[in-house]
């Protein structure tokens, strides 16, 4: 396994604050519409499907790989991916703690938080055990 890439800290703004505050407590929040009930990603304060209001709910942190690509032409190769969350949305993330050559679309993955260069907990995924 190659040495892990250093994750640059996300730019924060008032819309991102609740997510990263929960992430610091190892809780994974996803925005869900209080009107149509759909989850979406990336998070917004409004529902992009029905214009309704959203609330943060704790996500299961489970999903499958929708697509991935391993960047090879850098000092520390890394896997960019979209994970299809159990709640529905496709979420851009990194696949970590794994052999990049054994990844496959459709593979089950679980959430793991990884610290960015400033300590912010960032939601990544790793192949589910077993």
């Amino acid at each position, binding site marked *: 396994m190659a040495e892990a*890439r250093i*994750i*640059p*800290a*996300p*730019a*924060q*703004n008032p*819309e*991102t604050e609740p997510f990263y505050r929960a992430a610091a407590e190892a809780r994974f929040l996803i925005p869900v519409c209080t009107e149509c009930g*759909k*989850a*979406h*990603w*990336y*998070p*917004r304060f409004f*529902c*992009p*499907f029905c214009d309704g209001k959203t609330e943060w709910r704790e996500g299961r942190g489970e999903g499958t790989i*929708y*697509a*991935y*690509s*391993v*960047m*090879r*032409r*850098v000092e520390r190769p*890394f896997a*960019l*991916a*979209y994970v299809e*969350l159990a709640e*529905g*949305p*496709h*979420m*851009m*993330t*990194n696949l970590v703690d794994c052999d990049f050559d054994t990844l496959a*679309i*459709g593979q089950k993955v679980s959430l793991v938080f990884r610290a*960015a260069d400033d300590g912010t907990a*960032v939601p*990544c995924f790793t192949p589910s055990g077993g």
Partner: protein
Amino acid sequence: MSEAFIVGAFEHPTRRAPDKSLGQLHAECALGALADAGLGLRDVDGYFWSGVMPNLGLVSLTDYLNLKLRHFDSSDVGGASPIVHVNHAVEAIRQGKCDVALVTLAGRPRSEGQATGTGARAGNALQPDSPWESPFGPVTSNLYGMCAMRHMYEFGTTSEQLAWVKVAASHHAQHNPNALLRDVVTVEEVVASPMVSDPLHRLDCCVITDGGGALVLAREEIARSLSRPLVRPIGRGESIMGQDGGRIDLTVSAGSRSGPAAFAEAGVTPADIKYASIYDSFTITVVIEIEDLGFCAKGEGGRFVADGNLISGVGRLPWNTDGGGLCSNHPSNRGGMTKVIEAVRQLRGEAHPAVQVRNCGLALAHGTGGLLGARHSAATLIMERL
């Protein structure tokens, strides 16, 4: 209402210009296209531009070129922008907002050492998506890599099929003295080139070049007074596609909207098209766009491009006969300008004789902008020769 015609086209011959300023490149392109039309800067009353000078770039360039404008547009949607500008110039001329429209593109990413495909693009921290994506290292090549991975997964597309896109471009580029890469390559050479980001190899990626190009459009009375062949835009479409709130489909692009819109306005079908310029930022881009434009069904693109089907004189769809972005030119990291220029050359009968399509009366230019794996634009332009 006056019809609009493309009366001037110019592609800067340079591919590396450390000795030229960015303004100078724009001016050389503008003067080249105006000279091609038989016009001058004093005739321009509409200017269309976007690019690597953010904020007041359009104002600055207008002053530098000393243009006296009635109309302008700096829509910036990435590499498709020059095609959007042509589409908007047609509209402006039809509405009487300008008589002679100038569209320019120029940049010098090669001289500036920009790692276009593997480096992060600066200046996007204010975009609402940035906090949710930038930690994960999305850059150009891995975002398009994910599109290719998903296309392979859903449709069985192979690296060898993708490689045929580059092979076709190289067959054309050998005849273009200005092309950056003029050597003909084989499928085996493409798939043996170093992996950049799975499954895209080095030769699946377009070149990084300095340079630019320009186009001039004019209303019908002016166009008919000039001595150039009459090229008329007859179908236009543009769209933007993102992640749909987390329901992204990496195998479908905004071309699935801009293409049908352009065909509907033109009243023609993909089977009528004699020549197509399709932005080749990566080989996978061409496969997805060929499907979305309707040249084949979704999922059939890999099989469609294989076995030389894009090579002029050989295959069913002569494509990017200048060598495209994969071999010839990709100024300012934006493919839209050169796509229109080569289509105009084909319609005028001024492409290289080795790649000129016979009786080329109907051509298409199509571009994407931004990043297919994240959010992007597309623009389609169908043109006829009168």
